[in-house]
C-alpha cells in the first residue's frame, strides 16, 4: 500500500477511536470516566482480537488489555456461535479481560456484507459494582466476591435489543444503579458513533484497502519496535522493586524483572516476582501484558499504538505468580501492582539505555474513599485518585503533581467536590521535599487535607502504595518521599497499620484526613545540579533547608519541612 494513503487512513481510523472516547467522556455519569477518563475505545481484529487502532486519549492501561477482552468474546462466539449484527457483549471479568471488576467492557461486531469485519470495543470504569466496599477498592478483600459482582462475557444486546432481564440483574447488584445506567448509555453512544464512522471510511476507501492498512500499520509498529530493541546492547538487565504489602499481611511483595535483549527481541521475565497474595494487589496475566505495553509505549513514544508494539516481545510470567492469578483471587488494587511492573521496566531500561533513563514516577493512585450519610439520611461516597510527581529525565526535572503513566486523568476540582460532598479541603498543595534529588530533580507530590462536615461518622478507606519503598532515582539520582496518610479525631492523629492501606476506620464531624503523596525519583548526581536551579528550588520552597543538607539528603523525610 502506498505510504500516503496509509498515512491518510491511519489518521481517519485514529480519529474514529478518539471520537468514541470524546463521546463517552461528555455523556458519562461518573467522574472517574467523565473527568478522570478511565475509559478506552478501539478497533480490534476480527479473528485474533489484536488491537488495530486505539484512541489517543483513552486510559493507556486499557490499550493493551482490551485485546484480551475482545479475544474472550471471540472465544465465546467460537464455542457457542450465533453472532449477528447488532449484538453487543458486556462483561467485567478481570481474569479474562484484565484490570478489575469496575471496568465494564462492551464489545460489538462490525459486519460488512454479512461478514464480520472487525470488532469495536468500549471500556469504562463504573462507580460501583457491589462488593463489601463502596467503589470496590476493598483493601481487605481476600477473594473477588468481596470486590463486586462478576459478569462473564454475555450478550447484553441481541440484534439491537437490550436484554432487560440481564440489565435488571446488573442494576440490582450495585450501590449506584443510576450512575451505571448513565455510563452504559454513554458507552453505547460511543459504539454507535464508532460504527457509523467506520462504515463511512469503509465506504470511501473499500474494505480491502482498509484491511490492508490495518496490516501495514501493525507491521510498521512491529518494525519500529524491533529497531528500538535492536538499538539496545544485548544483555540481561535486572530490576527489583517491592509492594508495601497486600493489606492482609504486612510483608513486602517483590516485583522483579529480568529484561533480556537479544538482537531485535525483548524478553520480559517476571519469574523472580512474588507468588499470588491473599489481598487485592494480584493481577491477571492479561493485565501484566497490558501494562508492559504501556511501559514500552512510554519508553518509545514514537512507535504507533497497536498490537505491533508487542510483536517482538516475549513474556515469562509463571502460573501462580502475583502477576498471573486466576479467579477468585482479589484484584481490585491492580493499579498499584502494574505501576510497580511499569517502574521495573523503566528501571531496567535505564540500565540498557542510559541516555534515555527516566526516574520512577510517584507510583500509586492512592484510591481514597470517604463515605457516610448526609443530614437527610442519604448516602454519600467521595472517591478519588490522587496525583504525585514524575521522575527526573534527560530533558529536565520531573513534572509536579501529574497523573500516573497508566492514566490521562484530570482531577475533579475542589469546588466540585465540596459542592457535591459534605467535606472541606484544608490543604490542596504541592509537597516540599518530596521529589528525589538529582541533577534533574523529581517532580514533587501533593498534600491533600480534608475535614468532614457530615453530621455522623465518616468512613475512611484507602488503597495506596509507596508507603515504605520510595520511587527510585536513576543514574545517581535520589529516591522520592514516600506516601504518608493520617487521620485525626479527638484521640489524636493516627497512621494506618499497613501504612498505605486502610479499611474500617472512621472520623466524627470535624475530623480530618491528610494524604501526602510521593514525588518522582531524581535523575543524575545531585551534586551536578545547576546552582541556579538549586537556588530556585529553595526560593520556591520545593526543597527546604533540611532536605538541601547533603547529610540528610539521602533519606528524604517525607515531612513537609519548613525553612527555619
Amino acid at each position, binding site marked *: 500500500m502506498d505510504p500516503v494513503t496509509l498515512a491518510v487512513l491511519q489518521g481517519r481510523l485514529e480519529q474514529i477511536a478518539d*471520537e468514541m472516547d470524546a463521546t463517552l467522556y*461528555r455523556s458519562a455519569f461518573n467522574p472517574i470516566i467523565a473527568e478522570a477518563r478511565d475509559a478506552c475505545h478501539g478497533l480490534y481484529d476480527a479473528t485474533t482480537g489484536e488491537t488495530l487502532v486505539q484512541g489517543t486519549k483513552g486510559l493507556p492501561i486499557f490499550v493493551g488489555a482490551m485485546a484480551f477482552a475482545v479475544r474472550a468474546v471471540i472465544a465465546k462466539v467460537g464455542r457457542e456461535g450465533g453472532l449477528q449484527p447488532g449484538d453487543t457483549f458486556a462483561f467485567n471479568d478481570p481474569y479474562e479481560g484484565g484490570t478489575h471488576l469496575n471496568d465494564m467492557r462492551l464489545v460489538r461486531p462490525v459486519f460488512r456484507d454479512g461478514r464480520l469485519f472487525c470488532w469495536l470495543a468500549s471500556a469504562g470504569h463504573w462507580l460501583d459494582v457491589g462488593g463489601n466496599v463502596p467503589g470496590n477498592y476493598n483493601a481487605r478483600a481476600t477473594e473477588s466476591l468481596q470486590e463486586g459482582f462478576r459478569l462473564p462475557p454475555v450478550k447484553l444486546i441481541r440484534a439491537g435489543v437490550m436484554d432487560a432481564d440481564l440489565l435488571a440483574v446488573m442494576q440490582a447488584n450495585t450501590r449506584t444503579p443510576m450512575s451505571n445506567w448513565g455510563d452504559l*448509555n454513554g458507552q453505547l453512544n460511543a459504539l454507535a458513533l464508532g460504527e457509523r464512522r467506520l462504515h463511512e471510511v469503509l465506504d470511501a476507501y473499500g474494505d480491502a484497502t482498509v484491511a490492508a492498512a490495518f496490516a501495514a500499520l501493525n507491521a510498521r509498529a512491529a518494525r519500529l519496535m524491533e529497531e528500538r530493541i535492536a538499538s539496545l546492547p544485548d544483555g540481561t538487565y535486572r530490576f527489583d522493586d517491592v509492594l508495601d504489602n497486600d493489606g492482609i499481611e504486612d510483608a513486602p511483595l517483590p516485583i522483579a524483572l529480568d529484561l533480556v535483549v537479544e538482537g531485535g527481541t525483548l524478553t520480559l521475565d517476571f519469574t523472580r516476582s512474588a507468588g499470588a497474595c491473599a489481598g487485592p494487589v494480584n493481577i491477571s496475566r492479561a493485565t501484566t501484558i497490558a501494562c508492559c505495553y504501556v511501559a514500552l509505549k512510554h519508553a518509545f513514544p514514537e512507535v504507533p499504538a497497536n498490537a505491533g508494539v508487542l510483536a517482538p516481545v516475549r513474556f515469562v510470567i509463571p502460573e501462580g505468580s502475583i502477576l498471573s492469578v486466576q479467579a477468585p483471587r482479589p484484584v481490585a488494587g491492580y493499579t498499584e501492582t502494574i505501576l510497580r511492573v511499569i517502574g521495573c521496566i523503566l528501571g531496567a531500561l535505564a540500565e540498557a539505555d542510559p541516555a534515555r533513563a527516566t526516574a520512577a514516577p510517584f507510583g500509586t493512585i492512592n484510591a481514597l474513599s470517604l463515605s457516610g450519610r448526609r443530614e437527610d439520611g442519604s448516602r454519600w461516597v467521595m472517591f478519588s485518585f490522587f*496525583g504525585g510527581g514524575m521522575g527526573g529525565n534527560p530533558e*529536565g526535572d520531573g513534572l509536579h503533581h*501529574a497523573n500516573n503513566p497508566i492514566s490521562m486523568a484530570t482531577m475533579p476540582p475542589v469546588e466540585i467536590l*465540596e459542592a457535591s460532598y459534605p467535606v472541606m479541603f484544608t490543604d490542596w*498543595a504541592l509537597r516540599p521535599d518530596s521529589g528525589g534529588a538529582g541533577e534533574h530533580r523529581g517532580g514533587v507530590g501533593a498534600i491533600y487535607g480534608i475535614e468532614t462536615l457530615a453530621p455522623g461518622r465518616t468512613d475512611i478507606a484507602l488503597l495506596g502504595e509507596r508507603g515504605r519503598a520510595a520511587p527510585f532515582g536513576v543514574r545517581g539520582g535520589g529516591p522520592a518521599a514516600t506516601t504518608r496518610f493520617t487521620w485525626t479525631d479527638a484521640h489524636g492523629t493516627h497512621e494506618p497499620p499497613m501504612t498505605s492501606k486502610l479499611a474500617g476506620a472512621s472520623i466524627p464531624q470535624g475530623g480530618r484526613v491528610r494524604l501526602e503523596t510521593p514525588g518522582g525519583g531524581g535523575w543524575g548526581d545531585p551534586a551536578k545540579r545547576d546552582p541556579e536551579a538549586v537556588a530556585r528550588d529553595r*526560593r*520556591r520552597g520545593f526543597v527546604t533547608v533540611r532536605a538541601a543538607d547533603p547529610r540528610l539528603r539521602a533519606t528524604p523525610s517525607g515531612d513537609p519541612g519548613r525553612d527555619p
Partner: protein
Amino acid sequence: MSRLIVGVDVGGTFTDLFAWDEAARRFRTAKVPSQRGDEARGFMSGLDALGGPVAMAAIVHGTTVGTNALLERKGARLGVITTRGFRDVLEMRRRDRPKAWGLWGSFEPVAERDLRLEVPERTLADGTVREAVDLDAVREAARRLLEAGAEACALVFINAYANPANERAALAALREVWPNPHVSASHGILPEIREFERTSTTALNAYLQPVVAGYLSRLEGALAEADFAGRFHIVQSNGGIMSTAGARAAPIRTALSGPAAGVIAAAAIARAAGFPDVITGDLGGTSFDVALVTGGEMQLAPQAQIDFGLVVRLPMIEITTIGAGGGSIARVDAGGFLQVGPESAGSRPGPVAYGQGNTRPTLTDANVVLGRINAARPIGGALARLDVEAAREALLAHVGRPLNLTAEQAAEAVLRVANARMAGAIRLVSIERGHDPSRFALLPFGGGGALHVGALIREVGLKAALVPRFPGVTSALGCVIADVRHDQVRTVNRALEGLDAAALAALMAAEARVARAVVEEAGLPVERVETRFALDMHYVGQTHSVAVPLPEDAPERLTEALIAEAFDAAYAREFAQRLDGIPRRIVSLRTAAIGRRPALDLTLLAPEAGTTLASAERGTRPVWFEGGWHEARIYDRLALPVGAEVAGPAILEQPDATTVLDPGLIARVDALGNLVIR
C-alpha cells in the same frame, strides 16, 4: 463629520487594513509590513497609507499582542493572593500530563510559587463565610509581592463563585495598597465553579494587563499625536468588539482577537452569498485554523487551552488549529512515513524557494514545484521571484529519493499528506460534532487557503468552496463589521425539577442589565442590543454539560417544561441515547449582550461592470494535477466579471492570494465577486 471606519489586522508578516466610508459607501484596503515587537509602527503606517487617522471616525483592531504574550510567556511578573491552603492551585493544574505517551515534559506557571501568597479566609460551597478575610494579611501580602517586584496581582479565593464577599473586601484592601490598576479578582473575571479554571483565567488576565495596557497606550498615544478624534475599539475572542477600557480590564478576552476577526467576516460574506453553513480555513505560514459557521453564525467554545496548563475559560471562537501551514516542513520518518509539519520554517527563513537559508522542503515548495504558485509573482511583493529549482532539489533530496519518487511525485505526495491533515481538522469541527459535511461550503481566507480548495472539498465531501473576493483582508474586514458583544456566566446549580422559574427569570434579567450596560458604554453606533441566554445543563450525575439555548429576551415566560424540552432537544443533537427518568440540573447561566452594528453592504466589494472573461485571461502554464502536467489557463481573478465561469484546470491569481482550480471543477463569480467552486 467623517463616517470612516477602519479595521486593522496586525499579523506576523503583514498588517492589513480595510476602510469603510459609510457616507460615501466606498471601501479601500491597504497592506503594509508588520513590525514584530513594535506592532504600533505597522499599525500607524497602515493608517497613514489610508490617509492618516485624523479623518477616521472609528478604528477597530484585531490584535495578537495578547496571544503572543501568552505563547511566548512575555506577560507581567505576577503575584497571586489566595485562600490559605491553596496557593499551588495554579501549578497543580487538574493533575494532567502534557502527552499521553512519554513521561517527560514540564510546566512553568505564570506566577512563581514564591509570588503566590495565602491569607486566612474561607467560604464554603454553599456560600457560607466560615472565616472572614483578614484584610491586614491581604495588605501585608500585597506589600510583600510588590517588594518582590510583582507588576500585577491576581486575587482568587476558594468558592468565591458562590459568595464573593470575602474576595470583594480583599479587592478593596488590595487596591488601597497596589500602585497600578493591574489587579484582577476571580469573581469579576469568571464567577464560575472550578477553582483551577477560574484561577488560571484570572491569573492569565492579570498577567496580560500591563502588556495589553502598555500596547493600547502606545497606540492611543500615537493616535492622539496624529489628531485622531474618533473611537478606538478592540476585537474580542468571542467575535464581538469592546472598548479599550474593557480590553485593559479584561485583556484575556483578546486572546483570540485576530483569528476571531477573520471568522466574523467569513460568516458575513457567507451569509450574503447564500451559504449559511461554512467552514472557514485560514492557511498561514505555520498553522491551519479552522472554524465552523452554522446558520450564519460563528460557534463559540466555553474554554480554550492556549498551551499545556494555560487554560482560559471564557467564550471564545471555536478554532481548531493544526501545525500545517505553507512553511510546514516535509520529511520521511524512521518508519518510512511521509510527515508534513508540525515543524515549520515559518515566514523566516520560510520555504526553500524564498532563498533565505532554509534547505528542507515545505508545503509552499511543493505548490511552487507543481506550478500552482506563480514563481514570478510572489504574494505580498516582498520577494522578486521564487527559486523553483532549489525547491525541486529539496523535495527530491528529502522526500523523493527516500520514497523512490520524482520531484513532482514527491511534491504531490506532500500535498496529499498536508491536505489529509487539513481535511482531518475540518472533519474535527464538522463531522465529529455531528454536522453533515455535504451541507457545508469551505471558505478559505488568508494567502494560502484557496490553493487547496479542490482537494479539501473532495476529501471531506463538502458541497462547495466560497473564495471571498479579497481573501487577504478578510480579518480587517471582520473588524469593521463586528458587533459589540459582552459575555457573562454565572453558576446556578439548581435542579430543573421543581425549579423556581421566577427566581431564574430575575437572575436572567439582572445578568442582562449588566451585560447590556457594558455594550452601551462601548459607545459605537448600534441598531439594537440583543440579549441571549443559554443554560449549561446535564442529567444529575454527569459532570459535563450541554449548552441549552433559551428563547431570547423573554425570561419571564420560561417554565420548567419549556426548559426541559429545550434540554432534551439539545441533548438529542449530541448523543444517541436519551435518559428518560433521570433528574436534570441547571449548572450555569450564560448571558450575552450583542449590539448589532449597521450592516455593511457587501455588494460594494463586487467587480465593476465592463470587464469580460477574455480580458481577464493571462495565458496558460503547465500545472501538475493527479500524476501529470496539465496546461492550465491563468486568470487575473479581480478582472473576472460577475457571472463568469471558469473550468479547471485553471489558476486564478490576485495580489494577495492564489486560487487553484482542479480539473473537473468549475468556478463561478457570484454577484458579490466571490468565487463559488463546485
